[in-house]
């Protein structure tokens, strides 16, 4: 990592390396219950749009070889992410990051671990068309939709077009995803905030005090999402598959190339530079977006590279003061937590998840049928 940072310095990409370290932090917003999802005016909700979006979310015909749907990597039974540490992606691949959950993604203003995308609509398109994820060629996928009479009817009803258009598919999927959010009535912490003192166990209440106090979690995990949506370098342990998996090594180099890392650098690269790709600030190397702590119970493993398997592993990591990183956050320091305190923290973290996972039944997908001769579906 240091060698890489030096290479980037030498490549003349550098400006003001140390500036952001001294940035003062605003007082942390308190944890809160999530508000209703904001619905963008350009993509209003309707029952039929949600129905369509749900179908499309599960439809592998949106991928290049018809093998991979959104739901392939965002599995309802796995917390709308996947239990693999690194995302599986499209067949023939293994990706370089843990795939984020769809749960509560609707509440984020910045999506992806490096904050490169800003809307669910764009994310849906990006995921289904990226060669390592859905690998769907737009013209092919769009035409598949047009040979599904039920889709033709639904797109016409929802969007008013003669034939399904792919950009509308991403809108429908995004609309569906805006329904995949925590229900405060089912989250112990939210019930506690609403006045049900018994909703949190004593251990969870002690954990909450640690979270907001001694452990300092609230510095970054604040607000209704328990995320500042900021970017921080923690020195998360290296994902072993970066060294043991040929597919991951391919993915790492490819991702760096896609982000226009200079070729002299990317060929030797075996790291994920995180937020740097977006800002080109060396001070952002190794920084990743603070994840939400909601629904953690269902979304293991953890961290941008899935390197930590359990919540206890995560707490232990922070208790050590994080790991090593060139731009490591000064907010991390050894915490000196006792065993009991660690258990209490885990109990609180689990209380940020719903009592039962949010499951949506896999729909039966409408078939592709021959077109009639007149050109009408």
């Amino acid at each position, binding site marked *: *990592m240091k*060698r*890489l940072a030096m290479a980037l310095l030498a490549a003349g990409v550098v400006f003001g390396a140390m500036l952001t370290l001294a940035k003062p932090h605003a007082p942390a917003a308190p944890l809160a219950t999530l508000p209703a999802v904001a619905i963008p005016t350009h993509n209003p909700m309707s029952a039929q749009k949600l129905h369509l979006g749900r179908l499309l979310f599960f439809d592998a*015909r949106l*991928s*290049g*070889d*018809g*093998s991979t749907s959104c739901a392939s990597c965002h599995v309802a039974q796995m917390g709308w992410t996947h239990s693999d540490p690194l995302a599986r992606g*499209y*067949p*023939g691949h293994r990706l370089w990051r843990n795939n984020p959950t769809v749960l509560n993604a609707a509440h984020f203003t910045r999506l992806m671990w490096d904050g490169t995308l800003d809307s669910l609509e764009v994310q849906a398109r990006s995921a289904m068309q990226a*060669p*390592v994820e859905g*690998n*769907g*060629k737009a*013209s*092919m996928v*769009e*035409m*598949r939709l*047009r*040979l599904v009479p039920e889709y033709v009817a639904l797109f016409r009803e929802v969007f008013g077009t003669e*034939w399904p258009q792919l950009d509308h598919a991403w809108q429908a999927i995004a609309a569906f995803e805006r329904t995949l959010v925590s229900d405060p009535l089912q989250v112990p912490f939210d019930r506690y905030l609403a006045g049900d003192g018994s909703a949190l166990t004593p251990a969870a209440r002690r954990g909450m005090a640690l979270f907001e106090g001694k452990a300092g979690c609230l510095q970054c995990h604040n607000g209704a999402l328990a995320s500042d949506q900021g970017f921080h370098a923690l020195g998360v342990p290296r994902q072993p598959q*970066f*060294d*043991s998996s*040929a*597919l991951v*090594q*391919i993915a790492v*180099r*490819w991702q760096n*190339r*896609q982000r226009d890392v200079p070729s002299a650098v990317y*060929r*030797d690269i*075996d*790291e994920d530079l995180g937020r740097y790709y977006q800002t080109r600030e060396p001070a952002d190397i190794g920084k990743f977006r603070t994840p939400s702590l909601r629904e953690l119970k269902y979304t293991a493993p953890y961290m941008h590279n899935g390197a930590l398997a359990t919540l206890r592993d995560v707490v232990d990591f922070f208790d050590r003061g994080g790991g090593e990183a060139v731009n490591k956050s000064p907010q991390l320091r050894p915490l000196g937590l006792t065993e009991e305190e660690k258990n209490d923290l885990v109990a609180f973290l689990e209380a940020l998840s719903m009592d039962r996972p949010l499951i949506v039944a896999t729909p039966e997908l409408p078939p*592709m*049928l*021959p*077109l009639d*001769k007149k*050109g009408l579906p």
Partner: protein
Amino acid sequence: MSLSASSGGFGLSRTGRPPARPWVMRAMWCVLGLLALPGMAQEARVQPLPAPAVVRPQLAELGRHLFFETRLSGDGSRSCASCHAPAKGFADGQALSRGYNGTEHFRNAPGLLSVRLKDRLMWDGRHAGANLAGVVREMLTDGQFMNGETRIMEERIRQIPPLLALWRRAFGDASEPRSEQLFESIAEYLRSLDFPATLVDGALRGESAALPPAVQEGQRLFSGKAGCVACHHGPLLTDGKAHRLGVSEHPALQREPLRMVSLLRHHTEMGLPNAMAERGDVGVYAVSKNPSDRGRFVTPGLRGLAQTGPYMHNGRYDSLDQVVEFHDGGGGPGSELRPLNLSVHERQALVAFLRSLSAPLAAVTPPPAYDYGLIDGARR
């Protein structure tokens, strides 16, 4: 039979955009058409195969490995050889080719032997023969065929040590895989592939004994009464031009939605006006946008037919007997052909001649399937 010299769309790349300056293309084709006519009389004869191409051996050897390499495709499952199998004359033996996983193609996969001699590539001639590497690019990257992405191909090759070694033997010790060179390597391998010489080649050169009587008779008919030679001439027995024969649509096109998906998607990619309204394969029209090219397809060569059935752009005919019968009848609706009134005996003689243009293929052993290697992380 009129020659389709007005097929102005040839030379367009598959960008889905209309031609930038169509009048330039049309003017060019008018000139080419005029130039071609005087030459026709001289060239309208069957010719022996020319000497093999001189290829760069290390490039061709790399290309041979890449030709069989499934990891060039998007999901790592399909290689060039999946649809261009050496034992099938580098075609796939299907009426309509399969294409990429999750797709079904709407045309027949052509064989690749002596592809270096073709003037136009693809059934609709949308690529010039000289642009073989460009066609390789299209096959490897297009969603219909291998749906690969060039940088992923490059990084995968870097991760396969024996392939990287072959690469560096071809392009230098310090070279890194680059897609343009990758396409060129496969093209170079294809240039090394030729049809085996046949008895007909020997006879044409005056080097071998006389052909069997039935073949001789077929050859006479081919160049005489049946008039085949008007379009099927030269060393590959093709004029490299597009013609309308009125071959009927393959019923699978209407029956199997994925094939219609591929066809309509092709129309939209090519920028065909009113693309969603077409229900059949419009051929060169989708390339040229010239309505007179509707239903025109490039004349296929006639070598190696024994290995490359079914026949025609959509594999409509399983046997050469059917193909000859179709031509004898003057083709289908809108055909440029005229009825030939051949006797059964004459048709058989023609088939005998066509068969004599094939010879057994040399067996091709695919290269070993190499495993990925790890790149040492110690450099950190």
